[in-house]
Protein backbone atom coordinates (compact mmCIF):
# COMPACT_ATOMS: atom_id res chain seq x y z
CA UNK A 1 0.00 0.00 0.00
CA UNK A 2 2.79 2.40 0.83
CA UNK A 3 3.99 2.36 -2.76
CA UNK A 4 1.12 4.52 -3.97
CA UNK A 5 2.10 7.98 -5.11
CA UNK A 6 0.32 11.04 -3.79
CA UNK A 7 -1.84 11.48 -6.88
CA UNK A 8 -2.91 7.84 -6.58
CA UNK A 9 -4.74 8.39 -3.27
CA UNK A 10 -8.17 7.45 -4.71
CA UNK A 11 -6.61 4.19 -5.96
CA UNK A 12 -5.02 3.56 -2.57
CA UNK A 13 -8.36 4.14 -0.81
CA UNK A 14 -10.18 1.73 -3.07
CA UNK A 15 -7.44 -0.84 -2.70
CA UNK A 16 -7.64 -0.57 1.06
CA UNK A 17 -11.39 -1.01 0.99
CA UNK A 18 -11.02 -4.19 -1.06
CA UNK A 19 -8.46 -5.52 1.39
CA UNK A 20 -10.71 -4.84 4.34
CA UNK A 21 -13.64 -6.57 2.69
CA UNK A 22 -11.50 -9.54 1.81
CA UNK A 23 -10.45 -9.90 5.44
CA UNK A 24 -14.00 -9.58 6.75
CA UNK A 25 -15.48 -11.67 3.99
CA UNK A 26 -17.94 -14.37 5.08
CA UNK A 27 -17.39 -16.24 1.79
CA UNK A 28 -20.96 -15.51 0.71
CA UNK A 29 -21.74 -15.00 -2.94
CA UNK A 30 -22.91 -11.52 -2.09
CA UNK A 31 -19.64 -10.31 -0.58
CA UNK A 32 -17.62 -12.01 -3.32
CA UNK A 33 -19.64 -10.08 -5.87
CA UNK A 34 -19.09 -6.85 -3.95
CA UNK A 35 -15.35 -7.43 -3.97
CA UNK A 36 -15.36 -8.19 -7.68
CA UNK A 37 -17.29 -5.01 -8.34
CA UNK A 38 -14.79 -2.93 -6.38
CA UNK A 39 -11.91 -4.61 -8.20
CA UNK A 40 -13.53 -3.69 -11.50
CA UNK A 41 -13.80 -0.13 -10.27
CA UNK A 42 -10.16 -0.12 -9.23
CA UNK A 43 -9.06 -1.37 -12.64
CA UNK A 44 -11.20 1.23 -14.35
CA UNK A 45 -9.93 4.04 -12.13
CA UNK A 46 -6.31 2.94 -12.65
CA UNK A 47 -6.86 2.93 -16.39
CA UNK A 48 -8.34 6.42 -16.26
CA UNK A 49 -5.58 7.76 -14.00
CA UNK A 50 -2.74 6.29 -16.06
CA UNK A 51 -4.41 7.18 -19.31
CA UNK A 52 -4.13 10.86 -18.49
CA UNK A 53 -1.07 11.37 -16.33
CA UNK A 54 0.18 14.94 -16.20
CA UNK A 55 3.85 15.42 -17.16
CA UNK A 56 4.78 15.92 -13.51
CA UNK A 57 2.94 12.73 -12.50
CA UNK A 58 4.84 10.93 -15.26
CA UNK A 59 8.11 12.10 -13.72
CA UNK A 60 7.02 10.66 -10.38
CA UNK A 61 6.11 7.33 -11.98
CA UNK A 62 9.42 7.27 -13.88
CA UNK A 63 11.20 7.76 -10.54
CA UNK A 64 9.00 5.35 -8.58
CA UNK A 65 11.06 3.39 -6.06
CA UNK A 66 9.58 0.10 -7.24
CA UNK A 67 10.00 0.80 -10.92
CA UNK A 68 12.05 -1.94 -12.61
CA UNK A 69 15.68 -0.90 -12.95
CA UNK A 70 18.36 -2.16 -15.30
CA UNK A 71 19.32 -5.14 -13.14
CA UNK A 72 15.67 -6.20 -12.94
CA UNK A 73 15.50 -6.33 -16.73
CA UNK A 74 18.85 -8.13 -16.86
CA UNK A 75 17.39 -10.99 -14.85
CA UNK A 76 13.83 -10.96 -16.22
CA UNK A 77 14.35 -10.26 -19.93
CA UNK A 78 17.56 -12.15 -20.66
CA UNK A 79 18.31 -15.84 -20.29
CA UNK A 80 21.74 -15.10 -18.93
CA UNK A 81 23.81 -12.06 -17.99
CA UNK A 82 27.59 -12.16 -17.61
CA UNK A 83 28.82 -8.90 -16.15
CA UNK A 84 32.01 -7.32 -17.47
CA UNK A 85 33.57 -4.80 -15.13
CA UNK A 86 35.82 -1.80 -15.42
CA UNK A 87 37.07 0.71 -17.98
CA UNK A 88 40.68 -0.56 -17.69
CA UNK A 89 41.76 2.97 -16.98
CA UNK A 90 40.34 4.21 -13.72
CA UNK A 91 37.66 2.06 -12.15
CA UNK A 92 34.38 0.21 -12.25
CA UNK A 93 31.52 2.68 -12.06
CA UNK A 94 28.52 0.91 -10.50
CA UNK A 95 26.14 3.46 -12.02
CA UNK A 96 26.52 1.62 -15.32
CA UNK A 97 26.29 -2.18 -15.65
CA UNK A 98 27.39 -3.97 -18.78
CA UNK A 99 27.95 -7.51 -19.95
CA UNK A 100 27.19 -10.38 -22.30
CA UNK A 101 23.61 -11.55 -22.37
CA UNK A 102 21.49 -13.91 -24.37
CA UNK A 103 17.94 -13.55 -25.55
CA UNK A 104 16.37 -16.53 -27.28
CA UNK A 105 19.74 -17.76 -28.50
CA UNK A 106 20.72 -14.31 -29.75
CA UNK A 107 23.91 -13.20 -28.05
CA UNK A 108 24.11 -9.51 -27.26
CA UNK A 109 26.02 -6.92 -25.24
CA UNK A 110 23.64 -5.21 -22.86
CA UNK A 111 24.29 -2.19 -20.69
CA UNK A 112 22.36 0.33 -18.67
CA UNK A 113 22.32 2.86 -15.88
CA UNK A 114 21.63 1.30 -12.49
CA UNK A 115 20.00 3.46 -9.82
CA UNK A 116 19.60 1.03 -6.94
CA UNK A 117 16.72 0.60 -4.53
CA UNK A 118 18.15 0.42 -1.01
CA UNK A 119 20.02 3.32 0.50
CA UNK A 120 23.34 1.48 0.25
CA UNK A 121 22.75 0.51 -3.37
CA UNK A 122 21.74 4.00 -4.31
CA UNK A 123 24.82 5.47 -2.68
CA UNK A 124 27.10 2.93 -4.31
CA UNK A 125 25.50 3.64 -7.70
CA UNK A 126 25.46 7.42 -7.26
CA UNK A 127 21.69 7.26 -7.87
CA UNK A 128 22.32 6.17 -11.46
CA UNK A 129 24.50 9.21 -12.21
CA UNK A 130 27.53 7.86 -14.03
CA UNK A 131 31.09 9.15 -13.85
CA UNK A 132 33.42 9.29 -16.87
CA UNK A 133 34.74 5.79 -16.10
CA UNK A 134 31.19 4.49 -16.45
CA UNK A 135 30.82 5.94 -19.94
CA UNK A 136 34.31 4.72 -20.89
CA UNK A 137 33.50 1.25 -19.62
CA UNK A 138 30.28 1.25 -21.66
CA UNK A 139 32.11 2.39 -24.80
CA UNK A 140 34.93 -0.13 -24.39
CA UNK A 141 32.46 -3.01 -24.14
CA UNK A 142 30.43 -1.66 -27.09
CA UNK A 143 33.59 -1.59 -29.20
CA UNK A 144 34.22 -5.18 -28.21
CA UNK A 145 30.64 -6.04 -29.13
CA UNK A 146 31.18 -4.65 -32.63
CA UNK A 147 34.38 -6.67 -32.97
CA UNK A 148 32.53 -9.92 -32.23
CA UNK A 149 29.30 -9.06 -34.05
CA UNK A 150 27.17 -8.73 -30.96
CA UNK A 151 24.25 -6.28 -31.15
CA UNK A 152 24.20 -3.70 -28.37
CA UNK A 153 21.21 -2.95 -26.12
CA UNK A 154 21.30 0.19 -23.96
CA UNK A 155 18.87 0.75 -21.10
CA UNK A 156 18.72 4.42 -20.15
CA UNK A 157 17.69 5.41 -16.64
CA UNK A 158 19.55 8.37 -15.15
CA UNK A 159 18.76 11.76 -13.67
CA UNK A 160 21.91 12.95 -15.47
CA UNK A 161 25.66 12.42 -15.60
CA UNK A 162 27.26 12.94 -12.19
CA UNK A 163 28.12 16.58 -11.38
CA UNK A 164 31.22 16.46 -9.18
CA UNK A 165 34.88 17.35 -8.89
CA UNK A 166 36.21 13.92 -9.87
CA UNK A 167 33.80 13.70 -12.79
CA UNK A 168 35.10 16.99 -14.18
CA UNK A 169 38.73 16.07 -13.54
CA UNK A 170 38.27 12.86 -15.49
CA UNK A 171 36.51 14.48 -18.44
CA UNK A 172 32.75 14.13 -18.14
CA UNK A 173 32.15 16.38 -21.17
CA UNK A 174 34.78 14.58 -23.20
CA UNK A 175 33.42 11.05 -22.61
CA UNK A 176 29.83 11.92 -23.40
CA UNK A 177 30.92 13.59 -26.64
CA UNK A 178 33.13 10.65 -27.55
CA UNK A 179 30.46 8.07 -26.87
CA UNK A 180 27.97 9.78 -29.21
CA UNK A 181 30.72 10.13 -31.82
CA UNK A 182 31.72 6.46 -31.61
CA UNK A 183 28.20 5.07 -31.28
CA UNK A 184 27.12 6.94 -34.40
CA UNK A 185 29.52 4.79 -36.45
CA UNK A 186 29.77 1.61 -34.39
CA UNK A 187 29.52 -1.36 -36.75
CA UNK A 188 26.84 -3.36 -35.00
CA UNK A 189 23.10 -2.84 -34.41
CA UNK A 190 22.26 -0.68 -31.38
CA UNK A 191 18.89 -0.50 -29.64
CA UNK A 192 18.36 2.15 -26.94
CA UNK A 193 15.41 2.14 -24.57
CA UNK A 194 14.65 4.85 -22.03
CA UNK A 195 13.24 2.77 -19.14
CA UNK A 196 12.79 5.54 -16.55
CA UNK A 197 14.56 8.87 -16.57
CA UNK A 198 16.28 10.04 -19.74
CA UNK A 199 18.33 12.76 -18.12
CA UNK A 200 20.10 14.95 -20.63
CA UNK A 201 23.69 14.30 -21.74
CA UNK A 202 24.00 11.50 -19.21
CA UNK A 203 21.27 9.65 -21.13
CA UNK A 204 22.53 10.51 -24.60
CA UNK A 205 26.01 9.23 -23.64
CA UNK A 206 24.58 5.73 -24.19
CA UNK A 207 21.71 6.87 -26.39
CA UNK A 208 22.77 6.85 -30.04
CA UNK A 209 21.35 3.86 -31.87
CA UNK A 210 19.38 2.40 -34.77
CA UNK A 211 16.24 2.21 -32.67
CA UNK A 212 15.43 4.58 -29.85
CA UNK A 213 12.37 3.64 -27.82
CA UNK A 214 10.86 4.91 -24.63
CA UNK A 215 8.63 3.18 -22.10
CA UNK A 216 5.14 4.64 -21.90
CA UNK A 217 5.68 6.43 -18.57
CA UNK A 218 9.38 7.25 -18.93
CA UNK A 219 10.58 10.69 -19.96
CA UNK A 220 13.53 12.01 -21.96
CA UNK A 221 14.62 15.60 -21.47
CA UNK A 222 17.32 18.16 -22.16
CA UNK A 223 17.30 19.07 -18.45
CA UNK A 224 15.56 17.87 -15.30
CA UNK A 225 12.30 19.69 -14.54
CA UNK A 226 13.85 20.91 -11.26
CA UNK A 227 16.96 22.19 -13.05
CA UNK A 228 14.93 23.97 -15.71
CA UNK A 229 12.63 25.52 -13.09
CA UNK A 230 15.64 26.70 -11.09
CA UNK A 231 17.04 28.55 -14.08
CA UNK A 232 13.97 29.82 -15.92
CA UNK A 233 11.44 30.17 -13.09
CA UNK A 234 14.00 30.94 -10.38
CA UNK A 235 13.05 28.06 -8.12
CA UNK A 236 12.89 24.26 -8.18
CA UNK A 237 9.40 24.46 -6.66
CA UNK A 238 8.16 25.36 -10.14
CA UNK A 239 9.26 21.96 -11.48
CA UNK A 240 5.68 21.06 -12.36
CA UNK A 241 5.45 24.05 -14.72
CA UNK A 242 8.77 23.17 -16.30
CA UNK A 243 7.71 19.53 -16.71
CA UNK A 244 4.72 20.66 -18.75
CA UNK A 245 6.65 23.20 -20.81
CA UNK A 246 9.43 20.78 -21.77
CA UNK A 247 7.04 18.32 -23.52
CA UNK A 248 9.23 15.34 -22.65
CA UNK A 249 6.62 12.62 -22.22
CA UNK A 250 6.41 9.59 -24.52
CA UNK A 251 3.46 10.85 -26.58
CA UNK A 252 5.32 14.07 -27.43
CA UNK A 253 8.59 12.26 -28.11
CA UNK A 254 6.87 9.98 -30.62
CA UNK A 255 4.96 12.80 -32.29
CA UNK A 256 8.10 14.93 -32.58
CA UNK A 257 10.03 12.08 -34.18
CA UNK A 258 12.58 11.77 -31.36
CA UNK A 259 11.79 8.12 -30.62
CA UNK A 260 10.78 5.32 -32.97
CA UNK A 261 8.52 3.47 -30.58
CA UNK A 262 6.67 3.81 -27.31
CA UNK A 263 6.63 0.52 -25.41
CA UNK A 264 3.38 0.10 -23.45
CA UNK A 265 3.53 -0.49 -19.71
CA UNK A 266 1.31 -2.78 -17.64
CA UNK A 267 -1.81 -1.21 -16.15
CA UNK A 268 -0.80 1.23 -13.42
CA UNK A 269 2.83 1.47 -14.55
CA UNK A 270 5.82 -0.87 -14.92
CA UNK A 271 6.29 -0.97 -11.13
CA UNK A 272 2.95 -2.81 -10.73
CA UNK A 273 4.08 -5.83 -12.74
CA UNK A 274 7.78 -6.36 -13.44
CA UNK A 275 7.19 -9.68 -15.19
CA UNK A 276 4.64 -8.33 -17.61
CA UNK A 277 6.86 -5.33 -18.36
CA UNK A 278 9.83 -7.61 -18.95
CA UNK A 279 7.80 -9.84 -21.28
CA UNK A 280 6.75 -6.83 -23.37
CA UNK A 281 10.33 -5.63 -23.57
CA UNK A 282 11.57 -9.08 -24.48
CA UNK A 283 9.20 -9.33 -27.41
CA UNK A 284 10.08 -5.80 -28.54
CA UNK A 285 13.80 -6.56 -28.45
CA UNK A 286 13.34 -9.89 -30.23
CA UNK A 287 11.47 -8.25 -33.08
CA UNK A 288 13.90 -5.33 -33.46
CA UNK A 289 17.00 -7.52 -33.27
CA UNK A 290 15.66 -9.77 -35.99
CA UNK A 291 14.94 -6.80 -38.20
CA UNK A 292 18.25 -5.00 -37.60
CA UNK A 293 20.40 -8.10 -38.02
CA UNK A 294 19.08 -8.53 -41.55
CA UNK A 295 20.32 -5.13 -42.64
CA UNK A 296 23.56 -4.57 -44.50
CA UNK A 297 26.06 -2.71 -42.33
CA UNK A 298 26.22 0.25 -44.72
CA UNK A 299 22.41 0.54 -44.75
CA UNK A 300 22.32 0.28 -40.99
CA UNK A 301 24.91 3.02 -40.48
CA UNK A 302 23.32 5.28 -43.06
CA UNK A 303 19.95 4.84 -41.38
CA UNK A 304 21.43 5.63 -37.97
CA UNK A 305 23.07 8.78 -39.30
CA UNK A 306 19.88 9.97 -41.00
CA UNK A 307 17.80 9.25 -37.93
CA UNK A 308 19.65 11.92 -35.92
CA UNK A 309 20.48 14.08 -38.94
CA UNK A 310 16.86 15.00 -39.59
CA UNK A 311 16.09 16.10 -36.00
CA UNK A 312 15.65 19.85 -35.67
CA UNK A 313 12.93 22.45 -36.08
CA UNK A 314 13.77 25.62 -37.95
CA UNK A 315 12.59 27.85 -40.75
CA UNK A 316 14.64 28.11 -43.90
CA UNK A 317 13.86 31.36 -45.65
CA UNK A 318 14.26 31.66 -49.40
CA UNK A 319 16.31 34.83 -49.33
CA UNK A 320 19.95 33.94 -48.85
CA UNK A 321 21.50 36.43 -46.49
Amino acid sequence: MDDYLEFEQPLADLDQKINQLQQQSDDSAESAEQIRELQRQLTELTRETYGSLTPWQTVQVARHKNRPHTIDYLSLVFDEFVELHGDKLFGDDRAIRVGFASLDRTKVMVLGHQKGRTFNDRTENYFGCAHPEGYRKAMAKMRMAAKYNLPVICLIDTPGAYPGIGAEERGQAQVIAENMYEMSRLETPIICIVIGEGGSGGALGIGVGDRVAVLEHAYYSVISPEGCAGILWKGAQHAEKAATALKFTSDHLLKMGIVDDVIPEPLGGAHRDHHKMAATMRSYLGKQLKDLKQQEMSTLLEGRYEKFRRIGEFVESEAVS
Partner: protein
Amino acid sequence: MPQTQTAVSGRKKRHIPEGTWTQCPGCKARLVTKALERNQRICPECDFHLYVSAGQRIEQVLDAGTFEEWDGNLLAGDPLKFTDSRAYVDRLEAERKKTGLSDAAITGTGMIRARRVAIGITDSQFIMGSMGSVVGERLTRLVEKATEQNLPLIIVSGSGGGARMHEGIFSLMQMAKVSAALARYDQQGGLFISVLTNPTMGGVAASFASLGDVVFAEPKALIGFAGPRTIKATIRIELPEGFQTSEFLLEHGFIDRIVTREKLKAEIARTIDYCGK
Protein backbone atom coordinates in the same frame (compact mmCIF):
# COMPACT_ATOMS: atom_id res chain seq x y z
CA MET B 1 30.30 49.13 -2.40
CA PRO B 2 29.08 52.18 -0.47
CA GLN B 3 32.54 53.78 -0.36
CA THR B 4 32.83 54.06 -4.09
CA GLN B 5 29.34 55.45 -4.31
CA THR B 6 30.16 58.24 -1.87
CA ALA B 7 33.33 59.03 -3.73
CA VAL B 8 31.52 59.28 -7.03
CA SER B 9 28.54 61.27 -5.79
CA GLY B 10 30.84 63.52 -3.77
CA ARG B 11 32.53 64.63 -6.91
CA LYS B 12 31.00 67.11 -9.27
CA LYS B 13 28.94 65.11 -11.73
CA ARG B 14 30.62 64.64 -15.04
CA HIS B 15 29.07 62.95 -18.01
CA ILE B 16 30.88 59.71 -18.75
CA PRO B 17 29.28 57.87 -21.64
CA GLU B 18 28.14 54.36 -20.88
CA GLY B 19 30.66 51.75 -21.92
CA THR B 20 33.70 53.94 -21.34
CA TRP B 21 34.85 51.49 -18.70
CA THR B 22 34.72 47.72 -18.71
CA GLN B 23 35.25 45.63 -15.63
CA CYS B 24 37.47 42.58 -16.05
CA PRO B 25 35.53 39.47 -14.92
CA GLY B 26 38.86 37.89 -13.98
CA CYS B 27 40.53 40.43 -11.67
CA LYS B 28 37.72 43.01 -11.40
CA ALA B 29 40.03 45.78 -12.64
CA ARG B 30 38.32 48.76 -14.29
CA LEU B 31 39.66 49.00 -17.82
CA VAL B 32 39.27 51.68 -20.46
CA THR B 33 37.09 50.01 -23.08
CA LYS B 34 38.86 51.59 -26.05
CA ALA B 35 42.27 50.42 -24.88
CA LEU B 36 40.79 47.00 -24.17
CA GLU B 37 39.45 46.80 -27.73
CA ARG B 38 42.90 47.69 -29.10
CA ASN B 39 44.29 44.82 -27.03
CA GLN B 40 41.83 42.30 -28.60
CA ARG B 41 39.85 42.49 -25.34
CA ILE B 42 42.54 40.85 -23.26
CA CYS B 43 42.90 42.28 -19.74
CA PRO B 44 46.36 43.90 -19.43
CA GLU B 45 46.28 43.31 -15.65
CA CYS B 46 45.53 39.58 -15.44
CA ASP B 47 45.52 38.25 -19.03
CA PHE B 48 41.82 37.28 -18.79
CA HIS B 49 40.36 36.98 -22.29
CA LEU B 50 37.09 38.91 -22.26
CA TYR B 51 34.09 38.19 -24.47
CA VAL B 52 34.43 38.97 -28.15
CA SER B 53 31.47 38.74 -30.49
CA ALA B 54 31.33 36.25 -33.33
CA GLY B 55 31.88 39.14 -35.74
CA GLN B 56 35.00 40.34 -33.92
CA ARG B 57 36.30 36.78 -33.80
CA ILE B 58 35.99 36.49 -37.55
CA GLU B 59 38.06 39.64 -37.93
CA GLN B 60 40.69 38.32 -35.54
CA VAL B 61 41.03 34.86 -37.08
CA LEU B 62 40.30 35.19 -40.80
CA ASP B 63 42.13 37.12 -43.48
CA ALA B 64 40.38 40.44 -43.97
CA GLY B 65 37.30 40.33 -46.17
CA THR B 66 37.45 36.60 -46.89
CA PHE B 67 34.49 35.43 -44.80
CA GLU B 68 31.45 34.15 -46.63
CA GLU B 69 28.52 33.11 -44.47
CA TRP B 70 26.68 29.83 -44.99
CA ASP B 71 23.11 29.04 -43.96
CA GLY B 72 22.42 32.47 -42.50
CA ASN B 73 18.85 32.04 -43.72
CA LEU B 74 18.00 29.43 -41.05
CA LEU B 75 15.78 30.80 -38.30
CA ALA B 76 14.68 29.17 -35.06
CA GLY B 77 11.25 27.57 -34.89
CA ASP B 78 9.39 27.20 -31.62
CA PRO B 79 8.63 23.48 -31.56
CA LEU B 80 7.48 23.41 -27.92
CA LYS B 81 5.60 26.75 -28.02
CA PHE B 82 7.77 27.47 -24.99
CA THR B 83 7.01 30.22 -22.51
CA ASP B 84 8.66 30.96 -19.18
CA SER B 85 8.71 34.57 -17.98
CA ARG B 86 8.34 35.44 -21.64
CA ALA B 87 7.54 33.59 -24.84
CA TYR B 88 10.52 31.99 -26.57
CA VAL B 89 9.66 33.75 -29.84
CA ASP B 90 9.81 37.12 -28.06
CA ARG B 91 13.06 36.16 -26.36
CA LEU B 92 14.56 35.28 -29.74
CA GLU B 93 13.50 38.61 -31.15
CA ALA B 94 15.04 40.48 -28.20
CA GLU B 95 18.29 38.50 -28.47
CA ARG B 96 18.49 39.25 -32.20
CA LYS B 97 18.13 42.97 -31.50
CA LYS B 98 20.66 42.84 -28.66
CA THR B 99 23.37 40.97 -30.58
CA GLY B 100 22.63 41.67 -34.23
CA LEU B 101 22.85 37.90 -34.79
CA SER B 102 20.09 35.62 -36.06
CA ASP B 103 21.07 32.84 -33.63
CA ALA B 104 23.98 31.75 -31.41
CA ALA B 105 26.22 30.42 -34.19
CA ILE B 106 27.66 31.84 -37.38
CA THR B 107 29.15 29.44 -39.91
CA GLY B 108 30.85 29.84 -43.24
CA THR B 109 34.12 29.74 -45.06
CA GLY B 110 37.13 32.05 -45.25
CA MET B 111 40.89 32.13 -45.43
CA ILE B 112 43.45 31.81 -42.64
CA ARG B 113 46.78 33.08 -43.98
CA ALA B 114 45.65 32.01 -47.45
CA ARG B 115 44.43 28.57 -46.37
CA ARG B 116 40.73 28.01 -47.05
CA VAL B 117 38.85 26.73 -44.01
CA ALA B 118 35.32 25.97 -42.86
CA ILE B 119 34.64 27.94 -39.70
CA GLY B 120 31.92 28.10 -37.08
CA ILE B 121 31.69 30.41 -34.10
CA THR B 122 29.20 30.31 -31.26
CA ASP B 123 28.49 33.65 -29.62
CA SER B 124 28.01 33.39 -25.85
CA GLN B 125 25.79 36.48 -25.76
CA PHE B 126 22.89 34.99 -27.74
CA ILE B 127 20.76 33.11 -25.14
CA MET B 128 24.00 32.17 -23.36
CA GLY B 129 25.47 30.79 -26.58
CA SER B 130 23.13 27.85 -26.25
CA MET B 131 22.56 25.24 -28.94
CA GLY B 132 19.08 24.81 -30.34
CA SER B 133 18.07 23.45 -33.74
CA VAL B 134 19.56 26.35 -35.72
CA VAL B 135 22.98 26.11 -34.08
CA GLY B 136 22.90 22.31 -34.47
CA GLU B 137 21.82 22.49 -38.11
CA ARG B 138 24.29 25.21 -39.08
CA LEU B 139 27.18 23.35 -37.47
CA THR B 140 26.13 20.02 -38.99
CA ARG B 141 25.92 21.56 -42.46
CA LEU B 142 29.29 23.20 -41.84
CA VAL B 143 30.84 19.84 -40.98
CA GLU B 144 29.19 18.18 -43.97
CA LYS B 145 30.45 20.90 -46.32
CA ALA B 146 33.93 20.65 -44.84
CA THR B 147 33.73 16.90 -45.53
CA GLU B 148 32.56 17.37 -49.14
CA GLN B 149 35.02 20.16 -49.91
CA ASN B 150 37.86 18.61 -47.95
CA LEU B 151 38.43 21.73 -45.85
CA PRO B 152 40.05 22.04 -42.43
CA LEU B 153 37.37 22.76 -39.86
CA ILE B 154 37.60 25.33 -37.08
CA ILE B 155 34.89 25.77 -34.45
CA VAL B 156 35.32 28.47 -31.82
CA SER B 157 33.01 27.70 -28.90
CA GLY B 158 31.62 30.09 -26.34
CA SER B 159 28.54 28.84 -24.54
CA GLY B 160 27.50 29.13 -20.92
CA GLY B 161 24.15 27.59 -21.70
CA GLY B 162 24.94 24.29 -23.40
CA ALA B 163 21.84 22.75 -24.97
CA ARG B 164 19.02 25.32 -25.20
CA MET B 165 16.20 24.46 -22.78
CA HIS B 166 13.58 26.39 -24.75
CA GLU B 167 13.72 23.83 -27.55
CA GLY B 168 13.75 20.90 -25.14
CA ILE B 169 14.68 17.50 -26.49
CA PHE B 170 15.36 18.94 -29.97
CA SER B 171 18.33 20.79 -28.46
CA LEU B 172 19.66 17.68 -26.75
CA MET B 173 19.54 15.74 -30.00
CA GLN B 174 21.65 18.38 -31.77
CA MET B 175 24.55 17.11 -29.67
CA ALA B 176 24.25 13.67 -31.28
CA LYS B 177 23.62 15.13 -34.74
CA VAL B 178 26.74 17.32 -34.83
CA SER B 179 28.86 14.59 -33.22
CA ALA B 180 27.76 12.05 -35.84
CA ALA B 181 28.67 14.49 -38.63
CA LEU B 182 32.09 14.99 -37.04
CA ALA B 183 32.63 11.22 -36.91
CA ARG B 184 32.10 11.06 -40.69
CA TYR B 185 34.40 14.02 -41.23
CA ASP B 186 37.01 12.24 -39.12
CA GLN B 187 36.61 9.03 -41.12
CA GLN B 188 37.46 10.96 -44.24
CA GLY B 189 40.63 12.24 -42.63
CA GLY B 190 39.40 15.76 -41.91
CA LEU B 191 41.26 18.04 -39.50
CA PHE B 192 39.07 19.60 -36.82
CA ILE B 193 40.55 22.29 -34.61
CA SER B 194 38.29 23.10 -31.66
CA VAL B 195 38.89 26.39 -29.86
CA LEU B 196 37.34 26.75 -26.40
CA THR B 197 36.64 30.21 -25.04
CA ASN B 198 35.04 31.52 -21.88
CA PRO B 199 32.62 29.89 -21.10
CA THR B 200 32.20 26.47 -22.77
CA MET B 201 29.82 24.35 -20.71
CA GLY B 202 27.15 21.67 -20.71
CA GLY B 203 25.91 20.24 -23.97
CA VAL B 204 28.31 22.27 -26.08
CA ALA B 205 31.33 21.06 -24.07
CA ALA B 206 29.84 17.56 -24.13
CA SER B 207 29.61 17.43 -27.91
CA PHE B 208 31.48 19.15 -30.73
CA ALA B 209 33.70 21.34 -28.54
CA SER B 210 35.43 18.27 -27.05
CA LEU B 211 35.81 16.39 -30.33
CA GLY B 212 38.65 18.33 -31.94
CA ASP B 213 41.66 16.48 -33.30
CA VAL B 214 43.42 19.41 -31.72
CA VAL B 215 41.80 21.32 -28.88
CA PHE B 216 42.95 24.84 -28.03
CA ALA B 217 41.65 26.94 -25.17
CA GLU B 218 42.01 30.63 -24.39
CA PRO B 219 43.62 31.30 -20.98
CA LYS B 220 41.43 31.26 -17.87
CA ALA B 221 38.25 30.24 -19.67
CA LEU B 222 35.57 28.38 -17.72
CA ILE B 223 35.19 24.96 -19.36
CA GLY B 224 33.28 21.97 -18.06
CA PHE B 225 30.24 19.75 -18.11
CA ALA B 226 28.23 20.64 -15.01
CA GLY B 227 28.01 24.24 -13.88
CA PRO B 228 29.96 25.13 -10.72
CA ARG B 229 26.73 26.00 -8.92
CA THR B 230 25.18 22.62 -9.73
CA ILE B 231 28.29 20.83 -8.49
CA LYS B 232 28.37 22.86 -5.30
CA ALA B 233 24.70 22.15 -4.67
CA THR B 234 25.28 18.41 -5.18
CA ILE B 235 28.44 17.78 -3.20
CA ARG B 236 28.12 20.66 -0.73
CA ILE B 237 31.81 21.49 -0.48
CA GLU B 238 33.79 24.46 -1.76
CA LEU B 239 35.26 23.94 -5.20
CA PRO B 240 39.06 24.11 -5.49
CA GLU B 241 40.75 27.26 -6.75
CA GLY B 242 40.97 27.29 -10.53
CA PHE B 243 38.46 24.44 -10.92
CA GLN B 244 37.14 24.04 -14.51
CA THR B 245 39.53 26.59 -16.00
CA SER B 246 41.57 26.09 -19.16
CA GLU B 247 44.63 25.54 -16.98
CA PHE B 248 42.76 22.88 -14.95
CA LEU B 249 41.82 21.07 -18.15
CA LEU B 250 45.34 21.26 -19.52
CA GLU B 251 46.67 19.79 -16.29
CA HIS B 252 44.14 16.94 -16.44
CA GLY B 253 44.96 16.16 -20.04
CA PHE B 254 41.91 17.34 -21.95
CA ILE B 255 43.27 20.14 -24.09
CA ASP B 256 46.32 20.31 -26.30
CA ARG B 257 47.39 23.90 -25.89
CA ILE B 258 46.41 27.10 -24.17
CA VAL B 259 46.63 29.74 -26.87
CA THR B 260 46.38 33.47 -26.32
CA ARG B 261 44.11 35.42 -28.60
CA GLU B 262 46.81 37.30 -30.46
CA LYS B 263 48.49 34.02 -31.41
CA LEU B 264 45.35 32.07 -32.28
CA LYS B 265 45.42 32.70 -36.02
CA ALA B 266 49.10 31.75 -36.33
CA GLU B 267 48.62 28.62 -34.21
CA ILE B 268 45.69 27.48 -36.35
CA ALA B 269 47.65 28.04 -39.55
CA ARG B 270 50.65 26.14 -38.19
CA THR B 271 48.49 23.17 -37.11
CA ILE B 272 46.91 23.02 -40.56
CA ASP B 273 50.41 22.95 -42.07
CA TYR B 274 51.62 20.18 -39.75
CA CYS B 275 48.61 18.06 -40.60
CA GLY B 276 49.19 18.65 -44.30
CA LYS B 277 45.73 20.01 -44.94
